[in-house]
């Protein structure tokens, strides 16, 4: 699961029957600082996101489980529209206690 920005749409007329009615969007994966990480990918959408939306998405087998037909041949799906990203980078609390001694 990762953050991403929707950067465009993909239209396919000829496609696998299990993908009929499923919207496909181009997304740019982002880090928690909202800066791009890696290359854009195409992902199915089940939450009616649009270009410019900040979303969270999931990869691998799990992505098709978000779709109406859970055995669709899909490897990325948008699972939510993000309202807010709260980064509270406080480091590791009690780092010495947890990682401190060897024995």
């Amino acid at each position, binding site marked *: *699961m990762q953050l991403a920005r929707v950067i465009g749409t993909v239209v396919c007329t000829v496609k696998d029957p299990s993908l009929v009615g499923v919207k496909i969007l181009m997304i740019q994966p982002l*880090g928690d600082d909202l800066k791009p990480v890696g290359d854009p990918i195409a992902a199915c959408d089940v939450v009616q996101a649009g270009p410019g939306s900040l979303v969270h998405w999931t990869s691998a087998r*799990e992505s098709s489980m978000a779709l109406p037909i859970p055995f669709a041949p899909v490897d990325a799906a948008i699972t939510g*529209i993000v309202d807010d990203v709260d980064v509270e*980078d406080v480091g590791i609390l009690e780092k010495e*206690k947890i990682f401190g001694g060897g024995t």
Partner: protein
Amino acid sequence: MILCRVKGNVVATNKHPCFASHKIMIVQPVDENGDDLGASFLACDSVQAGPGDTVLVAREGNAARQVLGTWDDPFHAVIMGIVDRVSVESR
């Protein structure tokens, strides 16, 4: 399973229904010394972890669904433990 530190959380209103009762946290992988390792990602929380906690994360769908008590929902990563102590023998 990997060690991570919790870096924050993500709020979403419009989302897949399975996320309704699960908090989504931003986690940063760390090594055995507690130093950052690679890029952060998102994981569902099952143990009420908070920012700064060192946690045990499974980045695999079947484990995530097992912990969260479902079999057909699109969970891919889950926080399933808060780490109290890490001991490494040969440093």
